[in-house]
């Protein structure tokens, strides 16, 4: 199992949700975060001076899936979240050793 952690633009969340649903991935957890990447956010001009707004609002989408479905999820997210401009975000893949469904106690792939 892997956890796919995608940091995306907030305005793309609806699209990401939709596309994932179409690809039969329904489960997810989302968190409001702030972030910056290499470009250090967005640079504004103010009287000839530059001023950088780092830490822009982002959405973190977390999805735990079986190993073999990781690729599909990643591709789906990439398609839905991409605008082609700086700030589109990143996807990280993190190992998950175990998953348990609280309601039933089921564990492993059955639980995700």
């Amino acid at each position, binding site marked *: 199992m892997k956890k796919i952690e995608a940091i995306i633009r907030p*305005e*793309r969340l*609806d*699209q990401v949700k939709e596309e994932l649903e179409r690809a039969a991935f329904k489960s997810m957890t989302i968190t409001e975060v702030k972030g910056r990447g290499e470009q250090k*956010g*967005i*640079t*504004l*001009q103010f009287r000839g001076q530059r001023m950088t*707004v780092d830490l*822009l*609002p982002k959405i973190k989408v977390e999805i735990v899936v079986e190993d073999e479905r990781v690729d599909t999820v990643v591709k789906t997210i990439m398609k839905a979240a991409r605008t082609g401009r700086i700030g589109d975000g990143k996807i990280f893949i993190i190992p998950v050793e175990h998953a348990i469904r609280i309601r039933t106690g089921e564990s492993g792939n059955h639980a995700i």
Partner: protein
Amino acid sequence: MNLNSGDTAWMLSATALVMLMTPGVGLFYGGLVRKKNVISIISLSFIAYALVSVQWVLLGYSLSFGPDIMGFIGNLNYLGLREVGLENSDLTMPELAFVMFQLTFAAITLAILTSGVAERGRLSSFIIFGVLWTTFIYDPLAHWVWGGGWSARLGALDFAGGTVVHISSGFSALALSIVIGRRSGFGEYDMEPHNIPMTLAGLALLWFGWFGFNAGSALAANSLASNALLVTNTAAASGALGWLFASWLRAKPSSTGMASGAVAGLVAITPAAGYVDPIASIIIGVVAGLLCYRAMLFRLQRGLDESLDAWAIHGIGGLWGSIATGIFANSSVNGYSGLLYGNLEQFSVQVIAAGAAMIYAFTATLVLAKIIDVIVKLRVREEEEYVGLDISQHGEEAYA
């Protein structure tokens, strides 16, 4: 006439009430925008208020209420409130109270049309625009109707500003939104209101302040003011219920719809408040709720990003109210009668006055906005819009 302390007392209170409507607009709008633009939109209301407060004393009162020039505008006799005595023979209150009461009307009108630049307007350009707009568009319109201009002479009725305040701000907001263009992302993804309780708090202040707006326009603490107070309230309530139930037919009834309906009812009763009876006010309110709701749907269909619906609510509501005054005016209230009581002429005059205000406001704003846009750009840069106006225009974040 002699000063009447009761009338003066009411006008002082009414002025305070109307003043509070401007931050009311700010909060109403503030709840509807995204979190990154809330400081900007509330500040625009305050800044509009501050700018007009100074302009009115220096220039605006004279242009609006100074001795008439060709029915179009006042002259400069009252510049800086020169020659404005503390008492005026036409009024039962000190003239400065009247100046100040009218100031609050001019101020809120500019605040309402910030809807058209919401979430994308440059602060500095809006300041320039605002001063010119109030001078070249509001002041003449106020003069036409209340300052002895052509519209007044024609016999048009506008008790508290259906044309001057609402048609003018609503259609100007539309023009402005066309010149400045849609918000980036409009139509692509949802732009949900970021704080609906804030909008409802704004509604509370608006409804409250509107009592001063309409009942204060009687310029006295008398029966007319009492009638205005009651019909204002009923129209607001009916507008709220009208929009609520109409929207319920399509989807769950939203509180923002209810709030918009209340404002629509308040707008529509504004020109009529001193001429119609309570039953008429219910009809005016309900129709306002339904009509403005349709106007909003129409705007969305057309992909127009007049973002906070000043046009749908103030523009269309004001239009309806002005015409409704010509329909429902009941001579038992204030001596004027409308179409319903067989007076076609009043109706026609209302249509002409409302139409003229609409055309003037829309066209003149279009021209003014375009000129300013060419010279100093009305709109912020793309990346400034993306990070939000709070940071890019004010260097602040609303919530920490």
